[in-house]
């Protein structure tokens, strides 16, 4: 079975290596040990029957004494997976002997191995993987697995009705959406997000898993499904609630598989964020992307290495927050953008240019007029990405919004993107609050020829555009049945 870009993977946590790793990091209960052992049984693959999951990620080598035993004991499972048409990828990490792991994978008939930071040669399929902060961008792998991700959702205790939640304190939200957008702008291969459910003590519901999928898929990535021990125990025991949760996972995964084309769409955001996204620049610009998304300030990621040729035609603003000034050609390009009417928001090292202008509010930037546009240069070294994002949004003005979702205080990963040929667009909204979403009204800056509402697991519904009472553009009213954590509005332009 060949691993393909559209594969839907699941982390299959089983075997002695998994037990050894867990024992190293903390106490392992007898029940958890039992689940891990029983998950090794090839019969456990019955769970995947009828689901879109077609790829197992198996722990393969970690530089531990249990590596060889793991490879031996998973052989029946891998064989059965192959027989069922599933691809099997061995996960190699830590101080593992890579050559030995690759050889063992070949011998065991695995589809591929995923090796951290692999940049050598091999006649066996090897997928390089890496942490967020050091992703193997030059990888030629069919997919790009990335670790160090977060379990998406509102942090416990950060409810949107918290009386202290106010203008400066939106509930804290964890999302991987910004990173997926960043990665998708750099590589063609699908980005696989590796993250496990939060630790013991938190009971996950079906909607939590669905949100983990939506948060990854809406911006164009893919979550490597990872089930918590409680759910896996429930599935082994035939629990109906566990089965319902699994079916929700399968349903949501299938939905995105069926809309794979959306992942190739290009953001309609009007702010271009230029960075090399490396080292401390990743810390600041990455967090900036995260917080801009939290404010529904939609953006396009522009890697500095690609900026010279990147089209800026649809943009109203550029953000350049890297510590080092841009090289002269890029600086010239950004200045041309400003001269033609754009806004550039940047750090203090840019220097003074143009005629002083007023921002109209208390801001961390000195604003000047330059050509037909404006320059906003930070008054001091950049240290607060939240304030940077707030001021950028105000400098750009909500007059340049392309969409609004009303009653969406717990959103934060809205994606509005257009197909490469410009004939279609899709707006995906996520509500992380859990329970019923109150997102009911969507405003777009223009009216589209047609709109269809998609909910995971349901047939599409045609929506009529409503005139916006007081503003240009159009409104789309989601039916009450759509009060779910995720929706997609697909437009014909």
């Amino acid at each position: 079975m060949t691993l393909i870009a559209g594969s839907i993977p699941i982390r299959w946590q089983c075997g002695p290596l998994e037990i050894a790793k867990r024992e190293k990091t903390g106490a392992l209960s007898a029940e958890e040990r039992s689940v891990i052992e029983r998950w090794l049984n090839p019969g456990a693959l019955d769970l995947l029957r009828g689901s879109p999951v077609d790829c197992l990620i198996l722990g393969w080598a970690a530089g531990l004494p249990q590596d060889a035993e793991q490879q031996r004991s998973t052989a029946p499972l891998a064989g059965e997976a192959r027989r069922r048409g599933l691809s099997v990828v061995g996960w190699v990490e830590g101080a593992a002997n890579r050559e030995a792991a690759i050889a063992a994978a070949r011998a065991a008939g695995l589809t591929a191995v995923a090796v951290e930071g692999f940049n050598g040669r091999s006649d066996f399929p090897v997928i390089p993987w890496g942490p967020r902060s050091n992703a193997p961008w030059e990888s030629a792998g069919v997919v790009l697995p990335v670790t160090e991700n977060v379990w998406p959702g509102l942090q416990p205790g950060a409810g949107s009705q918290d009386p202290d939640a106010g203008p400066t304190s939106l509930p804290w939200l964890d999302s991987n959406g910004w990173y997926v957008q960043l990665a998708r702008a750099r590589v063609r291969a699908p980005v696989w997000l590796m993250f496990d459910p939060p630790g013991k003590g938190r009971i996950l519901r079906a909607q939590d898993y669905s949100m983990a999928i939506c948060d990854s898929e809406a911006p164009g990535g893919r979550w490597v499904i990872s089930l918590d021990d409680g759910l896996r125990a429930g599935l082994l025991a035939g629990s109906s609630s566990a089965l319902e949760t699994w079916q929700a996972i399968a349903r949501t995964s299938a939905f995105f598989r069926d809309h794979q084309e959306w992942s190739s769409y290009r953001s309609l955001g009007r702010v271009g964020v230029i960075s090399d996204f490396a080292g401390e620049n990743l810390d600041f610009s990455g967090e900036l992307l995260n917080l801009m998304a939290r404010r529904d300030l939609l953006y396009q990621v522009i890697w500095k290495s690609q900026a010279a040729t990147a089209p800026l035609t649809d943009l109203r603003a550029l953000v350049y927050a890297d510590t080092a000034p841009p090289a002269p050609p890029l600086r010239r390009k950004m200045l041309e953008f400003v001269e033609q009417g754009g806004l550039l928001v940047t750090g203090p090292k840019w220097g003074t240019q143009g005629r002083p202008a007023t921002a109209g509010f208390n801001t961390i930037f000195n604003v000047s007029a330059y050509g037909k546009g404006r320059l906003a240069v930070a008054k001091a070294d950049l240290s607060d990405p939240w304030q940077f994002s707030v001021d950028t949004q105000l400098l750009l003005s909500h007059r340049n919004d392309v969409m609004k979702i009303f009653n969406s205080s717990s959103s934060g990963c809205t994606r509005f993107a257009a197909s490469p040929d410009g004939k279609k667009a899709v707006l995906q909204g996520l509500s992380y609050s859990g329970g019923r979403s109150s997102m009911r009204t969507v405003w777009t800056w223009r009216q589209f020829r047609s709109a269809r509402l998609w909910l995971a697991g349901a047939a599409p519904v045609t929506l009529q555009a409503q005139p916006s009472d007081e503003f240009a553009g159009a409104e789309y009213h989601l039916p009450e049945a759509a009060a779910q954590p995720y929706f997609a509005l697909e437009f014909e332009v």
Partner: protein
Amino acid sequence: MINRREFMAGTGLAGLRLARPARALAAAPSAPVAVARCRSYGTEFLSATEKMFDQLGGLGRLVKGKTVTIKINLTGVETTRLDYLPQGRTFWSHPRTVGAVIHLMDKAGARRIRVVEGAWVWPASLEEFMLKAGWNPDLLLKAAPAVELINTNLPYKGSKPYTRFPVPRQGHLFPAYDLSTAYAESDVLVSMNKIKEHGTAGVTLSIKNCFGISPTTIYGNKVPLDEPAPVPYGGRQEIGHNGSRQPPTSSPSEIDPKSPRQAGYRIPRFIADLVAAVPVHLAILDGIETITNAELPRQDATRFVSPGVLVAGTNCVTTDAVAMAVMGYDPMAERGTPPFENCDNTLRLAEELGVGTRDLNRIEVRGVPVREVVFSFREHGGPRTPRQPGGRRGA
């Protein structure tokens, strides 16, 4: 001497009455109030308000050559809606009513027109707040030449961001309030908002609308102890609602820090003080469309209604008294009776400060008689459930 009902009401009204001599209620002035039917926000509103202003003696008499400040009501978070309905149809001032009034003010010779609100946002301008909410600010900005939009939750531009406004007759809660200097530069203050109920204050009318003139840089949560915050950090729960702390020492402290720390005691006094300190010269209340049972959309409790009525007057207490009658309430109602089940009657407190009378027998109603436009908010309300203390409130 307090009666049994006042006694039962507990510390609120009873405490006040025992602590102070009765005020000379009869001295509170009266002023006529205009009432009109109006079903829509277009030209019907424009002609209805123009007629009402004429019934009140003409707008020119009030605004010609003056700086007019229109305090609108944009309470809460900018993207909140009740179902699909724009905020202007439910719990905010409607942008077309504001635009129409600006137009009429300009036509009547106003020298300068400013639209103000303490918008729940940080640190954005009022214009940006409106844009985020889906309003078109040009409806206001282009309704007359040189219209200004000012977010009075932010320090006012220039060297004097705040001005102190003493409360006549000492005040109920504070002896004076530090407010945006925009209010000091104003000749005519217009309070313009929906006719609504309010979870803490009973009703939101032209007096309650003025809660939002207190800057959250001074009366907001988490402000510094000794000086105003450079930007707002939150709502007014700590100082305005529950009195868990005092404003910064740069502003006047409470008259009696031992008075009840209850929102139902404090909010009515806070707003009565404000309208005594900063007189409202024109109150315009929109009951064309609104909500019942709350000042902000609340799940399953709030109802959208269309009473189809406008109320306007040159005295905020008389105007609110007539509006209460239109809502099916008695403006003489005391604490413990609808709509003041959990709070003191703001109108009475403002009356005690000499702002105006709430006695309908002393108020001349012009235009449509009240009995012809009564719209019972209670009968049209949803289920009423007790609120948890300390939650977010609006105006």
